[in-house]
Structures are given as structure tokens and as C-alpha cells.
């Protein structure tokens, strides 16, 4: 591996002047990663998304499925913080202007006009009750209206008067979790089977390669259609989608499997592998300690591409009636619900979830970029 006395590396003193020469590999990785500014942004964004999805019930001001006939297509509201009073004084107290709904009798279009009343908001106020993580009954929300019967709409409301902000928050939880399970399974399968195929060769290789060819030859769309018909309709939508992503991942591992096999084949006769073997290292150690790390950058790259693909695929699957369907909430579902002329012309705020998809996909890509560079700190 690398030579500690290499002047090129020694010259690159780590952050705050620490000595690269004596830093561990993980420290090197971390320093290298921190230099990648976009990756740092990415990790913060992703961290924030996961934090929000973890505490979705608290962050969301409303029940995301609660319809409200008084708020159909309610436009987004600005939160004001400085409350000017009639006597000219002011105080810091968040509020929004209350809006009244009107429907044009001829065109049936809905418009909202300010009623002149203020709806005051309270940090950690009481609102809808919920069960946090399915365990604790609670009713505290990050920002709740003072009177529980009032509502405010940071991102507006959809055609059923449901609060878009709450829906985006809950959608984050689903979009950032369910699909990723499939990606993880595909990765484990791809590395394990691809690795075994490349490392052992011979009969194992032949069997696994035929398996990959067979899997690739399966026509996916008819299989999904059959699945959609075969899954018991009494299953909750999330469970149905989870099973479908599992099955998609059973098909999706093949590509990674082939790449891993190729790299293992090429690597198994490299000097450092032979040296390790001659040193009497176990197979496990050879594979996980010596061979796999040289693949990390590729694996990370394909993973970080797979995650946004999974987020996007969820929308496409929904179109075939296979992905998540309402009443489930995910970014894909929210976007699909906005896919009509009526939304564009009357409620453009319904496209806000699209911004979240873009941000999440970019953040994952930046993160992947940074991790790939950092995974090989000696490569500079």
C-alpha cells in the first residue's frame, strides 16, 4: 500500500495542522471528506431530512390525511414574526393572516381573501393528538396554532384541503426509507454473489452467472403486473409497496453482481492478494479486508445513483398501479396527485414536493461524490 514517507502526502497536512503521517485511515477519510464542500452540504441536508422524518409527527402541524372543506386549494401562507398592534406597539409573536374561502358561482373557481383576523402560532403548542413512533400518545407540535380549530398552511393545501407541509414531512419519511431497503438488499446480494462468483470461479461462477442471466431475462413489467394482481388487496399499501421493492431488488442486484465479479476476477491474482494469502490470512479477511475496500468507490458510486433512482422509480411504479398509491403519502404520490392541468393553473404550490425530490437526489449525489473521493484517501 502507500508509503508513509511519501513527501506528496506528508506535505498535505491535515486540518488544523495535524500530521497526516500518523493519522489513521478513518481520520484520513474524514479529513478528505470534509474538504469536499458540496458533500458536506449533502450530508447536512440528508441528516436534516432523516431528523425530520424521525420526528415527522412533531414537525408536521396537522394530520396529513385530515381533509378540510374550508381549505380546498388554500394558498401557502407566510408566517409573520413581528406582530404590530393597533396601538402602534409591537411584539415578537408568530402569526398568519386568516383567509376566507369563496367560490365563484359560474366558473366554480375557489379563491381566498384575507378576513383581517390573525391566527397566532405557538412554538411547541398543542394540536392534533398522535402516537409518536406508534408508542407514545402526544399532541405537541413544533409550531401549532393557538386555537386548535385553526390551521395554517405553510405550503398551501391540496384539492381535499389537506396541509401540504404536513404531507411533505410525512412523505419524506416514506420516500427516504422504504425504497432504500430494496437498495440495501440489492447491494448485499450483488456483493455477496458477485464476490463469490469472482473469487471462487469454476462451478460456483458458472452457476451464479447462469442465475444472473436467467434473472436478467425475466420480463419485469409483466411480473410486476402479475404481482399487483396477486398481492392480497387487504394488505396495507405500505406493505404492498415494501414487498414490491423487495422483489425489484431481487432483480436489481445483477448489475452490481457482474461488476463485482469482474473486479474480483481481475484482483485475485494481484500481488497484495497473493501476499495476504501466503501470509495465511483467512478467506474472510482477504475478501473483506483486502479486496472489497478497493471496490468501495465503485460500490458507493452505484449506491448513490441507485438511491435517487429508487426515489424516482417509486413515481413511475405508481403510474402502473404498482407503486405507492393514495392514501399512502410519499413524494412520488404527492407529485402524481399534482400531475394535472388543474394543479398547474390553480394550485402551483402542489409541485413543492418536486423541489424536495431534486434536493434529496442532489444531496445524495454530492454525498456519494464526496464519499467516493474520500474512500480512497491515498489516491490524490
Amino acid at each position, binding site marked *: 500500500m502507500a508509503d508513509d514517507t511519501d513527501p506528496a502526502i506528508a506535505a498535505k497536512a491535515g486540518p488544523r495542522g495535524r500530521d497526516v503521517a500518523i493519522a489513521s485511515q478513518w481520520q484520513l477519510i474524514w479529513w478528505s471528506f470534509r474538504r469536499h464542500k458540496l458533500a458536506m452540504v449533502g450530508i447536512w441536508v440528508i441528516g436534516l431530512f432523516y431528523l425530520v422524518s424521525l420526528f415527522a409527527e412533531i414537525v408536521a402541524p396537522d394530520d396529513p*390525511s*385530515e*381533509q378540510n*372543506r374550508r381549505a*380546498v386549494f388554500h394558498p401557502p401562507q407566510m408566517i409573520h414574526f413581528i406582530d404590530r398592534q393597533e396601538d402602534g406597539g409591537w411584539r415578537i409573536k408568530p402569526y398568519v393572516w386568516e383567509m376566507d374561502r369563496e*367560490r*365563484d358561482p*359560474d*366558473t*366554480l*373557481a*375557489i379563491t381566498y381573501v384575507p378576513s383581517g383576523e390573525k391566527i397566532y402560532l405557538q412554538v411547541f403548542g398543542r394540536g392534533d393528538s398522535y402516537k409518536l413512533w406508534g408508542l407514545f400518545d402526544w399532541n405537541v407540535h413544533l409550531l401549532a396554532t393557538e386555537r386548535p380549530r385553526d390551521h395554517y398552511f405553510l405550503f398551501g393545501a391540496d*384539492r*381535499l*384541503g389537506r396541509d401540504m407541509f404536513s404531507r411533505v414531512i410525512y412523505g419524506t419519511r416514506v420516500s427516504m426509507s422504504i425504497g432504500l431497503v430494496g437498495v440495501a438488499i440489492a447491494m448485499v446480494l450483488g456483493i455477496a454473489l458477485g464476490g463469490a462468483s469472482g473469487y471462487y470461479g469454476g462451478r460456483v461462477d458458472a452457476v451464479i452467472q447462469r442465475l444472473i442471466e436467467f434473472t436478467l431475462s425475466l420480463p419485469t413489467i409483466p411480473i410486476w*403486473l402479475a404481482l*399487483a*394482481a396477486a398481492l392480497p*388487496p*387487504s394488505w*396495507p*399499501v405500505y406493505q404492498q409497496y415494501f414487498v414490491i421493492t423487495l422483489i425489484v431488488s431481487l432483480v436489481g442486484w445483477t448489475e452490481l453482481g457482474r461488476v463485482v465479479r469482474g473486479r474480483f476476477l481481475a484482483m485475485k491474482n494481484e500481488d497484495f492478494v497473493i501476499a495476504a494469502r501466503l501470509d495465511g490470512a483467512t478467506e474472510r479477511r482477504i475478501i473483506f479486508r483486502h479486496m472489497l475496500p478497493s471496490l468501495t468507490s465503485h460500490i458507493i458510486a452505484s449506491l448513490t445513483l441507485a438511491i435517487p433512482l429508487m426515489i424516482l422509480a417509486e413515481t413511475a411504479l405508481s403510474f*402502473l*398501479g404498482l407503486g405507492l*398509491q*393514495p*392514501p399512502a403519502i410519499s413524494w412520488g404520490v404527492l407529485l402524481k396527485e399534482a*400531475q*394535472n*392541468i*388543474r394543479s398547474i*393553473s*390553480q394550485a402551483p404550490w402542489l409541485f413543492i414536493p418536486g423541489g424536495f425530490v431534486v434536493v434529496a437526489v442532489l444531496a445524495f449525489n454530492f454525498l456519494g461524490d464526496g464519499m467516493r473521493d474520500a474512500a480512497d484517501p491515498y489516491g490524490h
Partner: protein
Amino acid sequence: MTMLWRGLRPLTIAGMAAGLMAGPLAAQEYSEAPMLADMVAAGDLPAVTERLPDSPEVIEPLESIGTYGGKLRRVLGGSNDHNSILRIVGPQGLTRWNPDFSEVIPNVAESWEVNDEGSEFTFHLREGMKWSDGTPFTADDIMFFVDDLLHNEEFYPNAPARFVVSGETMTAEKIDDHTVTLKFASPYGTFLTELATPLAQEPVIWAKHYCSQFHPAYNDDVQTMVDETEAVEDWAALFRLKCGEVEAPNRWSNPERPTLDPWVATEDAYTAGATQVVMTRNPYFWQVDTEGNQLPYIDTLEMNVAQDNQAIVLEAIAGNIDMQRRRIDVLANKPVFAENAEKGDYHILDVINSLSNAMAIHFNHTHKDPVMRELIRNKDVRIALSLGIDREEIIDIVYQGQGEPWQIGPRPDNVLYNEQLGRQYTEYDPDRANELLDAAGFDQRDGEGYRLLPNGERFTFDVQYTGIEQPDWGDALEIIAQQWEDIGVDLNISSVERSIYYSRGEANEHDFMVWGAPGGLDPTLSPRDVLAVHPQASWFAIPWTRWYLSGGEQGEEPSESMKKRLELYEAFKAEADQAKAADIFREIHQMAADEFEIIGISLAPNLVGVVKNGLANVPGSIPGSWMYPDPAPTLPQTWYWEK
């Protein structure tokens, strides 16, 4: 004729008089479109007097006499939207609806007589009338349909129900070249009405001189043609491919097929994968206006094929559609259409909904699971479920506030209106609903507050709906799911693709199904929600429909009330006296109201369409119904472009 529609509210188009039997004009007064005049001058076409019947039907246009020329643009939704073409070109049956959907008037038949019993119908055809290729249209064409197709088991393994009475298929007798009598085994009071509906055009859609070449009785070599044609297994399939059938894309795919329609297919026909369909005027069309101008006024129909409904909405607001409501007619689109009307240079068409309910809930009374079946058959449970729905909220959110709480049955302005059938148990009363469910023995609840069934399972309904076509049902179901939570009933909603929807329903694998309830203006033509007669739509009891259609051999024996209703329905069909027939139907409705099998949400609100400014003779408001295949009965052949 006394029709059951007489009670229909006078519509805005009531003033539109259909020109009935005005005296024949002198031959020299007929005139024709410039494009045809050119062809006559070039010797490619006979003169207009020779092309028209001796006494063409004279139509009085709605507003004014038109001028020739121009094209009419519409958009088709995919490659299975044949009925969009049928609805503007097709329904040229022996009879047709007058424009306000109140009466059946002569169409291809010039006049008719009915025998006293009401079982024999003698039709007089127009002398000198011709198919679109110039061959005379005569009684032989109708005889060809009856003798060679209707009674041919290879063509119709089962004769269509509309031509069968008391188990006997209709027969025909040719009196002379222009007179034919259609005969039934017993009285058939609704036959003339039936003939005005889109599916009963068979007697006059197949030209014998052309179609007989695909029939083994006329062509010994037909098997050779079958063998030469791909994907065709027998002569009947070949016949349908070449000559079309009433309700299929192939009716519009063969430009060689002669028709009686105002516009005929061209090389740009409605074939698989077509992106644009063009139809051109029929030079032999048999109607003229009051000044003797041969109809239609408009030269061509141009129909682009779009792949999804949103694309059609876009075309409409861009002003690229001249007259259409199909696939874009939900009220939710109205604000969008209104907003863009000026820019797109069109105005909004008001379509009077013939449906009874925008969304009916068909509980499965023949559920395979005995626990669910017992639950569903308990009328108190159904009442509770109905009382547990806040219809006002659904109407306000999903139907733009334009409906009213409603179950099923004829609309309030129909003569057969039954208040109990329409309005019983539509109030929102969750307390009463909870009482009823407790009293019915579902008083145990689980940890989440849902009721439990006697077998310990949660009181849950699984419901499927076709979300791609009807997103409004999904919205309404989500609201219902929330409202039913308050009465401890769990609703599990899933949107499925339409073919899966049908296969689940036909296999009787549903708890309940959701569909629009027809029969608001046409209760006797679409009785499938009060009578188990439709194997693909009477979702509340599919096995009962099988029992009825198979004469008791298959399916499952219906409830006593339904059996009595089906008997009454047979009596209704045979009743020639319209007043008595209406009374029979009132009795059917009353029994259905007492049984309360299906619940509904909202009286179907009116629909919307767009009409390009400058297109004249289009009514401002038209009835919308499959049985009145709008807009054809308003006579698109009289529409024209104002200069």
C-alpha cells in the same frame, strides 16, 4: 308516441325543433358542398339529385342555415376510444332521439306502423336512399342482418338481448324493396326506444352488397380470405374486422366499408397506432336543410389521438378542440376552462348529467365469506354506513359544491322519481349510526377503536376503484374512510387498473365496488342498480345476474324481493302500454327503495365541455348519456363555421 321521458325538465334546447317530415322539395332546389360540386363537374360523382333519396329528410337547423366548408377538430383518448367517433358520427339507427331526449323520432326509417299488440313493427325506408358508395340502401340490407347474421349461430352464439323477447329472436319479413316488418314473439313496448340507443344500430350498419363477401352463404371462398388474414380465425371475425361492429374500433378502421353516416372514414382511419383520424363528408348523405342544402355542412372531421386525458385538457384550453366533452368533462375542470376561455377562443358547454349518482357504493350481497355476507345483508348495517357519511362535505370538496346528498334512482325531474329511493338515509348522523351498529351486535372494539366482527376480526371493507379514470372516487373514498373511522368501521382503499377491477368484480371477490349510478334520466334503459341484470355492472350481486341471464341455471338464487323485481321487469318489457309500463317500473323502484341494497353519495352534477366560438347551431346545453349518445342527436351535420 308516449314516452317515459315526457317529464323531462324543458331543456335549453327544447326550442330546437327537429325537422319532421317536411314535404319533399323540388329536385332542382338541392345544392351541395363545393368540394362535391367540383367532383360532379369532373364527372367523378353523379349529380346531387341522383345521390339524395327521392324525399330526403329535411332538417331545420337550430339557429340558422349554414355554409359549407371547414373542419371540426376533436381528440380521441387512445386506441380504444371508438365510442367517441360513434357519438359524433355513428348513431344512424332506424330511429333516433329528438334533440331534447324526450321522444324517439324517425331517422333512417322514414316512418313506421306498429300492430295493435305491439309485437310487429313495419318500417318504411326512404326510396332512393344510398350507401356512402352509391349503392341503393333497401329492405334487403335489413333482411341480410336478420336472416344471415342475427339468426346465424356462428356470428351470434347468443343473439343480443335487445332483439330477443320471451326467448325468441326477432324475425323479419320483406314487404317490398322499401318496407320491412320486424316481428317478435310477444309485445315489445320499448323496441322503438331501444333502436334509438347506440347499440341497436345493427339492422342498418351492414351493407349487404359489400359485407356479404365475408359471409359463407354468399362467398364460397370466404375460408381462403380468412386464411390470408392475420389474427382472424373464422369468417365471423373476418366479417367484424372488415365490416365493423357497433361498438369496436374496427368499425372506423376500414375506409372501404359503406355507411349511412354523415362522414366516412378515409385512408387516415382509426387503426391501431393511428395518431390522427380524418373523416370526410359522405357524398350520399340523406339529409338536407330547409333550403335544400345537402348535409353535412362541415367538410371533414379531424381527430388527433391523445394518450392521456390531461393532454386532451391541454388541447382544449389551447383552443385546439372545436367541440368535445368526452374525457374532459369533470366539473373540477370547469375553473380551468373558464380561466382560459378567452385565450382559447371557446365557450363552455353545459352537459346535463343523465347519471343518477356520481358515485354509488355496491355492497356485495353475495359475498363469498358468510360473515361478511350476513353483515352486508343486514339492512341496519347498511343504514348505519349510509348515515355515517357526511355527503355535504364530500360534495363540497370533490364535486365543487354542485351535487346534493343522494342515493340512487331517477333524478327529481324525471317522471319516475321516487323520493325514498333517492333521499332516504342521506343525512349525516354518526350517533344514530353507532347505535345501529351496536344494536346489530358489533359493539366490541379493538385497541384502535374499530369494531370487531363476531369472528374476532376487525370490521374492515376492502374497496377497489379505477383511479386512473375516476380520481374523484379515490378522493371521496378517502373522505369516507375518515368519516367511517368515527363509527368504528375500517376502510381499506386501493386503486387498481381497470381490467383488474373487472376481473375481481366478475369473480365476486369484492367487499364492495364503486361505480357511477346510471338511470337518472333514463331509468328504464339503465336499471342495473335496481335490478340484478348486468353481469359487469350490477356489482351488488353478480351471481344474481348470472342466475337471471341463464334462466336460473347458473349463479345464485336472488332474494325474494329481487326475484319479484326481475319478474316485474319481464312484464315491463312486454308491456306495450307506456303508462302501464311506467307503473310497473314504479313498483320496481319502490321495492328497491325498501330493500336499500346500494348507497350513493351525490346526485351527479352536470358536466362540462368546450365549444369553439364561431361554431354555429351547437346547443348551449345538451343531455349527456350513453343511451342518448351525445352529441349526435343534436345533429353535428348541421353545425357550421360562421364566417
